[in-house]
């Protein structure tokens, strides 16, 4: 296995955790009456970012000559993921609620790890080119 | 005179058997002169390596003394002895002796580095060139063959320009061509730089490079002669 592929594999795993997590164990608050809080929309955006990231990771695994570009492109996607809960999209009004207690920190950590991973991918591939 | 040994012997305790101890080396008195290659031969188990270890400051004799240029080796403390070993004695031990985490060149420069001496980069390159390990300078020992490791160890000993160089079966892993390369390097080192070289071997090919030949059996030197 080539060293340059490792970040892509980790990215793929992270995005799977993000996608599944946003629907299950990292999901935001549930309202008894079935209405949606703002955190619901943050979750939908995170789901989208996670899917984009996963597809990019899959591309990075398959298309060798475009790897550097794909890793570069993953950087802003990760940044979007970090900024989504709480900064770009409001969450619920109470720190004790699930969206702030679980979803926000977990998503920020997951997307930060992905950012770091993409950054390592960029460095590895840039060094290989030069 | 480079090395003088006076009545050195090594005695080990036996776990079973009649006598409760035996001599690996019986008392031996020996002088190795600067500018000559001394070769010690004998069957395996005759005490050659034990004698070499005692002469090179690695193994304290049960009795007797070893002088190197007037310094009584085993009266020195560990620090001073280690320093002397690093600065003035070169040893090529049997078997693998590479530090796996260092490259070939780093291994070769290690003795100087440990003593804090200026690194003998030039001498190292010359000897690496001569013994054919120059292309391997940045390789790690794990990638080297037995013969290459052996030559690396020889370069490591030679590059420090030791006053006396001890080599224990230095040609064991080598083919004929490399054997001659190494032995002629030893001879040139002794003759041109007026240093002492002491080689332990059971191979006859080494004898033709010797200035002095010792034969050992049963822990005793049974003959010493200049070659015909």
């Amino acid at each position, binding site marked *: 296995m080539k060293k340059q592929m490792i970040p892509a594999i980790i990215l793929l795993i992270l995005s799977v955790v993000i996608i599944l997590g946003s629907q299950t164990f990292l999901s935001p*608050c549930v*309202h008894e009456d079935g209405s949606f*809080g*703002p955190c619901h929309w943050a979750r939908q955006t995170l789901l989208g970012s996670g899917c984009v990231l996963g597809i990019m990771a899959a591309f990075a695994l398959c298309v060798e000559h475009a790897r550097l570009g794909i890793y570069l492109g993953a950087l802003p996607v990760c940044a979007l993921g970090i900024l989504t809960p709480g900064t770009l999209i409001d*969450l*619920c*009004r*109470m*720190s*004790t*609620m699930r969206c*702030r*207690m*679980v979803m926000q*920190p*977990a998503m*920020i*950590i997951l997307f930060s790890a992905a950012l770091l991973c993409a950054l390592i991918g960029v460095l590895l591939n840039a060094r290989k080119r030069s | 005179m480079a090395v003088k040994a006076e009545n050195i012997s090594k005695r080990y305790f036996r776990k079973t058997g009649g006598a409760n101890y035996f001599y690996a080396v019986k008392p031996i008195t020996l002088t190795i002169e600067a500018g000559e290659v001394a070769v010690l031969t004998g069957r395996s188990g005759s005490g050659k*390596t*034990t004698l070499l*270890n005692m002469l090179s400051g*690695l*193994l304290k004799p049960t009795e007797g003394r070893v002088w190197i240029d007037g310094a009584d080796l085993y009266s020195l403390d*560990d*620090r001073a*002895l*280690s*320093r002397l*070993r*690093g*600065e003035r004695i070169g*040893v090529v*031990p*049997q*078997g*693998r*002796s*590479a*530090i*796996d*985490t*260092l490259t070939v060149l*780093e291994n070769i420069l*290690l*003795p100087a*580095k*440990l*003593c*804090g001496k200026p690194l003998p980069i030039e001498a190292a390159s010359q000897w690496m060139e001569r013994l054919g390990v120059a292309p391997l300078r940045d390789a*790690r020992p794990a990638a080297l063959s037995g013969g290459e490791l052996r030559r690396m160890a020889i370069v*490591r000993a030679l590059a420090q320009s030791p006053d006396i160089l001890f080599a224990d079966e230095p040609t064991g892993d080598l083919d004929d061509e490399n054997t001659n390369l190494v032995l002629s390097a030893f001879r040139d080192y002794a003759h041109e730089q007026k240093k002492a070289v002491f080689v332990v071997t059971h191979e006859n090919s080494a004898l033709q490079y010797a200035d002095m030949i010792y034969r050992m059996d049963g822990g005793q030197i049974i003959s010493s002669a200049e070659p015909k």
Partner: protein
Amino acid sequence: MTMKHFSLSLKNLIRKPGRTGTLALLTAFLALAVFGGSVVVLSLRSGLNSLEARLGADIILVPSEAQSKVSFQNMFLQGTTGAFYMDASALDKALEVEGVEKAAPQTFLASLKADCCSIKIQVIGIDPELDFTVQPWIARSLTRELGDMDVAVGCKVEADVGEIIRIYEQRCKVVARLEATGTGLDTAVYCNMDTMNALLAAAEEKGVSHKIESGDSVISAVYVKVKDGCDIDAVNNRLNGHIRKVTAVRTRSMITGVSDSLAGVSRTVTILIVSVWALAFFILLLAFVLIIRERAREFAVLRLVGASRGMLGRMVLLESALCGLLGGLMGVGLAALLLFPFAQLIESALKLPYLMPDAGRVLLLAAGTVLLAVTVAALSSVIAAYRLSRIDPGTALREGN
């Protein structure tokens, strides 16, 4: 002298990443347990102190309905909402009792969740003239008194100063965000009694009834401070006897309950730390001895080329200390990654007041933990280093063949 060891040790560590990583991982567990455990225990302890400070009264009177005492405790400890009422005359009656120095009323109201925050929120009305428990805390964030339709919010209510929040359709202006207390008070919203009465009226219109049959002026609790030198239990008994349909509760019992739980958690954490410590030390000890045995030939070669016994001993200590440093940093880093972002989750799971220590103390604790990891790693290699210095290079070189 030291530099040359250092570079050799560093190369030994970097070029054997598997070995280094395993040793570092072992110390990382140690550091994780020590740092994580200490932060949790410290947080619980400052949570308890904060709870004592915020309770600030000797006795609290609540309506004697079956649920009101439990509901009051949960409100304080876990931030659940509570709404129970008694006649406002209880305040005056309390002041009549011998031994009572001060008494201050509070009125509670739970907001409808649809109103502002998509969750029910506890609204607490205080009387600025009588209050002696909440005011000093509010004063740290707000220099003036709470005006009409002003609210001060607990630190866990995500609303900015100046923002308007709506409670029962009433527009309330956020004038302060309060400091963290680690208690249930952090999820509440505070206002004065006039505002509270307006909110109660609005709630009535929405069909949320809080009326009790006798009067129209209601309160939820009375905080009582006992005169110095008076027996609190005696005052407690007098209050219970003097006022009908009211239960007097000693705050001490609430605090004792919490500190008992805290002691339990502390004990568990201590056992955890000690067992991880012992296990890690033992495994490290074993690992170093095994590693030294495996490296006997390498060290014999170093002796051969001029390294003294002392040099090798120092090298082993340095390498293990560096492994400890790496492991310590990893462990503290991992613990920080779990403890700080998920502090709220931990608090909710523990169901106890939980107040994080300030950054200075956390940094001090982190530095101490890393130092401990380095010391433990170095200590556990001492035996190995000693045995190593006894290796006879001649013998080791022959055996290794």
